Structure formats: C-alpha cells, structure tokens
C-alpha cells in the first residue's frame, strides 16, 4: 500500500537491512531514547524526508516460528479445542447438539489463541516518521519477507482526529484517540478503536 499525491504512485523499493543504523537524534514515538536492542530490519525510504522518530517491535532476542510452525500451531489450536470441547461435553453428559456446540466453541477459542500466539511470535513492525511522511514495515515469518505501508504527506490530504471523554458509554474506555488520514478515497488510520466497530 502506498498513499501519496496523484503524481507519484510508484512505491519506493524495500531495502532489507541487518539492523539499520539510525541517527542518534532519532527518538521513539513518545520522545524516549530508543532501546539498544531494537532491530530496524528495513531502511527508511528517502521519500519520507529526514527521519525524526522510529520504533521496531523486532528485538535482538526476538525469534520467528520455525518453518511450518504456523501450520503446526494452528493445528494444535484446532485439535486442543476439539479435545477440550469433547471432554467437557462428555463430562456433562451432553446431547449430540451439546457435543457439537461445545466442541465448536472451544475450537474457536483455542484457534484464536493460536492466531494470537502466531501474531506475537512471527510478525514484527518497524515504523519511521519523517518530515514528509511515515512508513511501516512488517516482517512475517522470516527476515526476507517484508512488506511496507507508506504515507507521504501532501497538501490535499485531510485528517480526522478525535479525542473523547465519554460519559454515557460505561462499556468503553474513558478516553479514546484515533488519527485518520484520507486521500483519494483511500484511508489510513493509526489506531483501530472500538468506535470503528460501532460505526
């Protein structure tokens, strides 16, 4: 994905690096000093201008799942859900429908846990903010499998930001922030908030 002004639609090429060396002036997104164990696995494209902030969720001690790990993890999730569901239904002397519903429910739960585990252990982000735009790289499965999302600022973009203090919605957090940019019917957001689910 590459969002920018109409005249430049060619995305910059991805330059994979062992650990891109950032200028010492570059800070994190809360103006914090960057921890030394972060691994910046791709170089920021020059089109985003001078990099001022960066962050990476890939650390020196981070690992990827071994080859086939995703499939095995998912399989384990599904099988363990079926077994747990079967045992619980059996324990409670369920009817056939009870067996099916319990097994489906626990399969969904354990599959979700498996997906979460894969996401936490097999995919990492690296984000750079520059004077002219922002880029996010995602590495998935191995260091050579990198995709990028780029947002280049331009004058015709519009943004929508929102900060709410919520009185009447007790099931939501008290404060919610999201930041969204629109251009040419494309949309890019910096947070998926519960409002999006409601909207």
């Amino acid at each position, binding site marked *: *994905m590459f*969002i920018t002004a109409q005249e430049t639609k060619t995305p910059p090429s991805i330059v994979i690096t062992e650990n891109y060396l950032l200028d010492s002036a570059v800070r994190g*997104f*809360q103006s914090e000093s960057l921890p030394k164990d972060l691994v910046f696995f791709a170089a920021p494209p020059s089109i985003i201008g001078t990099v*001022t*902030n960066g*962050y990476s*969720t890939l650390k020196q001690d981070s690992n990827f799942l071994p080859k086939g790990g995703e499939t095995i993890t998912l399989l384990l999730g599904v099988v363990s859900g079926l077994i747990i569901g079967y045992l619980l239904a059996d324990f409670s002397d369920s009817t056939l429908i009870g067996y099916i519903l319990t097994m489906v429910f626990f399969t969904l739960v354990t599959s979700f846990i498996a997906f979460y585990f894969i*996401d*936490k252990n097999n*995919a*990492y*982000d690296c*984000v750079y*903010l*520059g*004077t*002219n735009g*922002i880029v*996010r790289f995602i590495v998935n499965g191995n260091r050579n499998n990198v995709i990028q*999302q780029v*947002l280049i*600022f331009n*004058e015709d*973009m*519009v*943004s*929508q*930001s*929102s*900060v*709410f*203090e*919520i*009185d*009447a*919605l007790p099931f939501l957090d008290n404060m919610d*922030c*999201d*930041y*969204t*940019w629109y251009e040419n019917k*494309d*949309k*890019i*957001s*910096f*947070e*998926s908030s519960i*409002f*999006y689910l*409601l*909207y």
Partner: protein
Amino acid sequence: MSLLSSIFYINSKPNDYENSIGSMALEKWLIFLYEQKVKKEIQKKGAYEHHSGIIFYQDHFTFYHEGTTHTVDRSNLVDIVRDYVTQKIDEGEFKIPYLSLKKDGKLIPITPQAAMFRQPQFYNCGLLRLYIERHLM
C-alpha cells in the same frame, strides 16, 4: 466504515503507543501542511480560509459565531481557554475539548481541538493551534 481501511497497528507495546505514533505523525503532517499551504497562502493572498468561518491573517485570526465575527490577536490571545462542549450523537453523549474565547464573562466556542468523525468540517483543526504558535505567540 470501509473494510478496505488500512490500519497502522503496532504490536507488543503498551496500548497508548499507537496513539503516540498517530499523534506524532499528525503533528508532523500539520507542520507540513502549514509550511506548504497555509503560510504560503497568507503571504500570497493575505489570508487563509480555514474552516467554519475561521480565517487566518498574518497577525490575527477571525471566527464567526452566532452572527458576529470575533477577532483574536496578541492582545486577547490570553483569553483563549480550553473548554468542554457536550454533544449527543447516536452512540452516546460525548465531552469534546473546545478552544473558546472568553469574552464578557462568557465562553464563545471557536473550534474543537479534535475533529469528530461525524463532523468533517473540522478536519485539519490542529492547524489553529499551530497557527497561533507561529503567528500570535
């Protein structure tokens, strides 16, 4: 809300870190917008029309509220305060931070500090704060 929406979602950090990325990117983009558009237009045409009747000039800005145009410059900048306005929409009741002008003991709302998704006219609202910093302070 389109399913094609692209979301920058950052894993493995405290929840508010995503907001920090959004906030900082928004700040950077506002500076870009100010430098590339607002500043140039003020220099060239003498004014930049922001939104909802807010017009930026070199040394003051004006806004329109209930039939009256108000002017804010260095002399009354100190009277701009942050206020909350309660708004009701389908999902509930929200307190929205507003910039207001304190005049004759009353608070006159200028613009919300953040835009709501139901109010596209308030897009780019952070420009007002940036404009004030660059021109009136």
